[in-house]
């Protein structure tokens, strides 16, 4: 290997590090990604320079095919399908490492008939294990997210013991492989166990936890690349692989924290209990949830916002953080108003008292009659702990006990986000069909806590 190529690898490694560093900040993330792509390009070109002319045709053909597929899907996929895409790409990465490891194994044992060094054998086994597991795991994650198989956790008795037995089986087979490197049977056992374990560890996990799983599998695929680096004695593989492996673990941890799950839980593969069953009785409404980050992004993209405060704002004492939200919006030149329903809260003027306390100037507070016509032209309505006062049943359903009460036409806005703790009912004790409307998204959680998070997300943008 010439010095020039080694230097190229060094530069590629440096670019990966820099790129990853820049991906940390919204502002520089795109540039960071491009830097790391540049590093990859350099590494590939440097490698190609070592290639014999004979293999060149097939190699280029493979590259063209791979690039075409990659480009096609990457550009075609909808934004909402990003996680699936990442999952499947990641699976391919794992499978590639797996294949390279096997390729090297067969090259040494079958073609060259040489005996392999201990380190290399171990590296091959590791690469096969992690790569294979990553592949099938990612595939399952992809299918789950894509809806091809049920997103809900698929569990069965004895899951954990079976996984453990398989893993021990793998270790045993690995041990014998080290002793007798040439037995293809052993290798096949290793391969099968790795692939099966990938399926078994991901299948019991629910759809909501998938992002965490994908992040973890991503880390694994880095480790697989790293192991491959040890097989081939190649620095850039080791550097890039271990960068991804380590950062993936950290990222997984961060994501777990954001979802309030423990990493141990995830690492054991034992997670998957479903998240927030809406505890509504009666005709249950199917709602769409939204997270804090997406809420922040939504706010970042609109030009007019109306906040509808209700009794929940008072209970949560969220008025102060709503003022901060207002400040963030006004910084972005977003038109920001409050729609005050005359009976919001539990006493006349309840909202007025609290919003005055938060120093929100009177001219931001608009009465129901004046603001009701504005909703259809509003990009985003945030309902904070209000329920009855925005319940369309008051207009539509003569059976409802609140029928005839004038309400805020929040449902008429382009998008409605409802911030409340659960599917709990309001004072009048009636179901609110608004929550199931197609333009309505539920942001579950205590109003103060969630909006605080939204605001700090916005500050970072």
């Amino acid at each position: 290997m010439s010095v020039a190529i080694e230097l190229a690898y060094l530069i590629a490694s440096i670019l990966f590090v820099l790129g990853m560093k820049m991906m940390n900040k919204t502002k520089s993330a795109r540039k960071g990604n491009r830097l790391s792509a540049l590093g990859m390009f350099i590494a590939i070109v440097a490698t190609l320079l070592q290639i014999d002319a004979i293999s060149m045709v097939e190699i280029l053909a493979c590259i063209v095919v791979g690039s075409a597929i990659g480009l096609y899907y990457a550009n075609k996929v909808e934004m909402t399908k990003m996680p699936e895409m990442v999952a499947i790409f990641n699976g391919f990465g794992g499978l590639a490492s797996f294949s390279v490891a096997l390729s090297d194994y067969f090259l040494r044992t079958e073609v060259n008939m040489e005996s392999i060094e201990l380190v290399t054998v171990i590296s091959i086994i590791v690469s096969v294990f992690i790569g294979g597991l990553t592949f099938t795991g990612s595939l399952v994650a992809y299918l789950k997210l894509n809806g091809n198989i049920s997103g809900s956790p698929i569990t069965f008795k004895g899951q954990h013991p079976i996984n453990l037995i398989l893993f021990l089986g793998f270790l045993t087979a690995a041990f014998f492989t080290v002793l007798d490197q040439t037995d293809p049977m052993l290798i096949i056992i290793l391969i099968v166990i790795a692939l099966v374990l990938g399926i078994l560890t991901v299948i019991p996990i629910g759809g909501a936890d998938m992002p965490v799983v994908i992040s973890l599998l991503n880390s694994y695929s880095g480790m697989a690349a790293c192991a491959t680096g040890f097989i081939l004695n190649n620095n850039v593989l080791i550097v890039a692989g271990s960068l991804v492996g380590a950062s993936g673990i950290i990222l997984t941890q961060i994501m777990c924290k954001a979802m309030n799950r423990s990493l141990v839980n995830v690492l054991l593969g034992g997670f998957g209990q479903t998240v927030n069953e809406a505890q509504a009785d009666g005709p249950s409404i199917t709602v769409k949830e939204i997270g804090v980050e997406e809420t922040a992004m939504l706010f970042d993209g609109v030009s007019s916002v109306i906040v509808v405060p209700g009794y929940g704002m008072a209970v949560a004492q969220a008025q102060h953080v709503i003022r901060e939200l207002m400040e963030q919006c006004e910084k972005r030149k977003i038109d920001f108003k409050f729609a005050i329903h005359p009976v919001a809260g539990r006493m006349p003027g309840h909202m007025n008292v609290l919003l005055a306390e938060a120093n929100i100037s009177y001219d931001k507070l608009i009465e129901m009659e004046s603001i009701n016509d504005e909703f259809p032209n509003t990009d985003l309505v945030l309902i904070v702990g209000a329920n009855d006062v925005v319940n369309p049943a008051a207009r539509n359903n003569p059976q409802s006990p609140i029928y005839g009460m004038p309400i805020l036409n929040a449902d008429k806005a382009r998008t409605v986000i409802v911030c409340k703790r659960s599917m709990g009912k309001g004072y009048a004790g009636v179901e609110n069909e608004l929550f199931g409307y197609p333009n309505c998204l539920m942001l579950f959680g205590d109003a103060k806590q969630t909006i605080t998070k939204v605001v700090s997300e916005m500050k970072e943008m």
Partner: protein
Amino acid sequence: MKIGVLKETKTGEKRVALSPDVIKQLIKKEFSVAVEQGAGTGSNFSDEDYKEAGAVVGSIQDVFASDVLLKVNLFSKEEVAQMQNGSACMSIMYAYNYPEILDEMNKKSIMSFSMDAVPRISRAQKMDCLSSQANLAGYKSVILGANYLEKIFPLMMTASGTITPAKVLIFGAGVAGLQAVATAKRLGAVVEVSDVRPETKEQVESLGGRFLTVEGADEVKVEGGYASEVSAEFLQKQKELIQSKIKDSDLVITTALVMGKKSPILVTEEMVKSMKKGAVIVDMAVESGGNCEISEKDQIVQKYGVTIIGESNLPSLLSTNASQLYATNISTLLLHLATKDGFNLDREEEITKGVLITYEGQVVHEFTNKILNK
């Protein structure tokens, strides 16, 4: 349809049934309105204001010649006497307390509607004058108390020493009580609240007040938003809790009502004796007997160094706002019951059923009958 607005006759009453703004809206809906001369003076609405709004300002006779008469307080015997046979009238009646007036009305076959009987359902909130007036009363009780208190409300750390915040103790977290909490809190006081309904805890806390939890509070029954009578055991426990709290209080505001009953005694003479010199009690339940044993209706009593304010008509002290809100309430109810061509009653409808007291010479109101026939 002609609407007549009489001047209030009760002493100290400064409110009026309709405001010029509301009259404008009625006129738009093709009602005609007659207002007695000087009816709005107490609420700072001049006769000119009414004329501008489109009302006819005239003598009392002109007003009596209306299809429906509006007032804040119940009509007196004399007023009923001057009404046309078969005409209608609306006001806060508390009908079950005044069977003799109902008799007079029935004699003349007058249709009467009581504002205090509006059912507390969601769609009737705009007609609910008990809420609107209680809300103002809650605010006023604090202002009045603050004005009589020889201390300030907020904590103040100054070069000349630190003034500790006033302690305000409020009984009853209904509409008035909650507004009192909010107002006292705004002014910087430390506010504590006692109520029998456990769900008020969260409401009080949402306004920054502290709730005094009495054990056994879950036994209290609540009917249609009103507290029904509570167990003796509860009252005893509540009393003990209060006894320990009231000693340190600077201002005590009592709002505890039980509908159709005498209000419970929450502050005994004994307790008043234990209070700090200079403390103030505002008894908002004084009209129905008072929550304080020694409060006197429409009197300011000074006893044991404590000032006990028994103002029974707090909303009237905020006459301008009180009249505005009352006018909205009464006109909304009127529009619910009538068009420009006259009344149009659906006697099965919940609100109509709730407010109609006398009809074609009969007392037709269930609750009133229940009380009267007891």
